[in-house]
């Protein structure tokens, strides 16, 4: 009986939470550990410390090409989806019109669609349109999967934007453009930067759509996929993976901080402190 009572009292919850986090992140922790191991095969016990695998990375031309491709795709996808996201988020948060919720739902849908299916459908459409597969088609694919994220970040930044702020600016003599520059933009800038970072990160890490839609040019995840065929290349892949992991983690953290700042700015209005 006491065991049941203890179970019901929830005293086990901290241990459960600990195991849960361990299960999630243990594999991720192995990555950096094996990437600084001298042995070429990832197994314990570790044989010695080296930064050799990292030093090799910049000396691999194929990897540099892939990194460059990823950068181009990432930046393009981030800019495009953020611009489209701004328009959509502004419309959804600012105006009331029939079908608003449906449109919002449709924009968010790629989040839950199976990525393989999305990738195959996009491939079919691109080929039907007569587009030859290239980084450009990858960008289009990435925009589709990035927009839901961009929308989420931007709507939370735009939501509750007090319209009277823009009116106050006009009232104080500022022109429409001046109001946009001095009030609207600074207030939503953190959300916009946050959206750019999130989209860039998603694009940087995305594999399936890039795999289907790219021609001969590989992005980083595709390069990694290709390298996995060679056992000797594994430590290098681990080192590269570690770098990607760190970069993604940093970008997402910065993005989240900015998103929260934007949300605070727009929502802490009115006489809340009266």
């Amino acid at each position, binding site marked *: 009986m006491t065991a049941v009572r203890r179970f019901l009292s929830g005293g086990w919850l901290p241990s459960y939470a600990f195991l849960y986090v361990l299960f999630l992140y243990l594999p991720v922790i192995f990555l950096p550990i094996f990437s600084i191991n001298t042995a070429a095969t990832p197994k314990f016990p570790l044989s010695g410390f080296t930064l050799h695998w990292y030093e090799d990375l910049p000396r691999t031309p194929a990897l540099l090409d892939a990194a460059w491709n990823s950068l181009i795709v990432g930046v393009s996808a981030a800019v495009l989806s953020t611009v489209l996201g701004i328009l959509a988020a502004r419309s959804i948060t600012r105006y009331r019109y029939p079908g608003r919720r449906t449109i919002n739902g449709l924009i968010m849908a790629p989040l839950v669609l199976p990525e393989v299916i999305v990738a195959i459908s996009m491939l079919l459409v691109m080929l039907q349109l007569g587009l030859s597969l290239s980084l450009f088609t990858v960008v289009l694919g990435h925009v589709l999967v990035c927009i839901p994220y961009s929308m989420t970040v931007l709507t939370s930044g735009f939501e509750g934007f007090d319209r009277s*702020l823009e009116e*106050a*600016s*006009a*009232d104080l003599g500022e022109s429409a453009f001046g109001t946009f520059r001095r*009030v609207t933009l600074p207030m939503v800038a953190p959300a916009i930067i946050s959206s750019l970072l999130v989209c860039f990160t998603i694009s940087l890490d995305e594999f399936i759509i890039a795999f289907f839609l790219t021609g001969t040019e590989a992005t980083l995840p595709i390069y990694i996929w290709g390298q996995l065929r060679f056992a000797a290349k594994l430590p290098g892949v681990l080192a590269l993976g570690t770098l990607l992991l760190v970069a993604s983690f940093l970008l997402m953290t910065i993005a989240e901080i900015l998103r929260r700042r934007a949300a605070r700015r727009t929502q*802490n209005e*009115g*006489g809340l*402190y009266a």
Partner: protein
Amino acid sequence: MPEQPQVERSQSDRPMIEIRNVTRSYGAFKALDDASLTIKEGEFFSLLGPSGCGKTTLLRMIAGFDNPTGGSISVGGQPMEGIPANRRPTNMVFQSYAIFPHLNVEQNVAYGLKRLKLQGGEEKRRVEEALAQVSLTGLGKRLATELSGGQRQRVALARALVMRPKVLLLDEPLSALDKKLREQMQVELRRLQQAVGITFVLVTHDQYEALAMSDRIAVMFGGKIAQVASPKEIYQRPVNRQVADFLGGMNFVKAEIVEENGASLVVDTLGFGRVKTDKPKAFVRNGGAATLGIRPERLRVLWDNATAKFEVAGKVVERHYFGEITHLIVEIPGLEKPLSVTETNDFGADDIPVGTSIRLAYDPEALVAMAD
């Protein structure tokens, strides 16, 4: 000590805002219906009414955030048609205060001055002066998020006043504050308006706020202006039952018109008998019936053997205690509704038992005739 702006202190009779037959329709719905009004220079003017009466619509049209679908508005003798909000000689204190959250207090107040590109230390001097006017000296570097509601309100005021507008528009500026702070700000706003001499136009749904602060009040219902007058006149001589009701308690008594001439009315009532009263300017006769009104505090309890020239007798049916005053509900033979009486507690009105027969004194001057 910075030099105070040289603005005409005293109120003049020169019109500052002229609103002529202004209508604002949204399809078939008229938010404002043929409203005409003149607001004088240096006046503290209030637009008073329940929500949806058109007062905010009118204020926003003066500011330039909305445009009339008919009629015209001029400010300082200049027609406002086609002039956008950013080029009007008006500034507004918003209900939400609309403090720019990414700027500190000083930057908020200096926002409108930046465009003027003032020479030397003029901008800084004017910001300091505005902050001093609203008692925020020394808080210039604070962020908007670090301010209390009352302080935000002061920033909003300073930000508008620093522009030295011809007219300051205030959209329910005190509604977000708690009662005590609100009452304190009413006094301060009034004092500030007297000091700077700028025409203030206040929108409010709070009758006490309007009565306490204004030189004149326009009471509005359903997009129409019902009455424009001084607080005292609005309170004592409401033109109709709606206005009377909106400005605090009023006892209504049915009356029969016996005689009507240019300045006065003689009516017969049950309870008050035959009464001769001033005829209100806006009185429109509607058959032989009229309504008389008397405020609860204009009925006084007569103690013991005291007598008055005009009195009515009745019986206390309810008693409600409010600290400094007591509210008595008194049934008068012949009146369909019992009278509300407000009596101060210094003579023991709070001890009158329910069921007591009492006599009430009144001044026939306090009986006001109104259109139904």
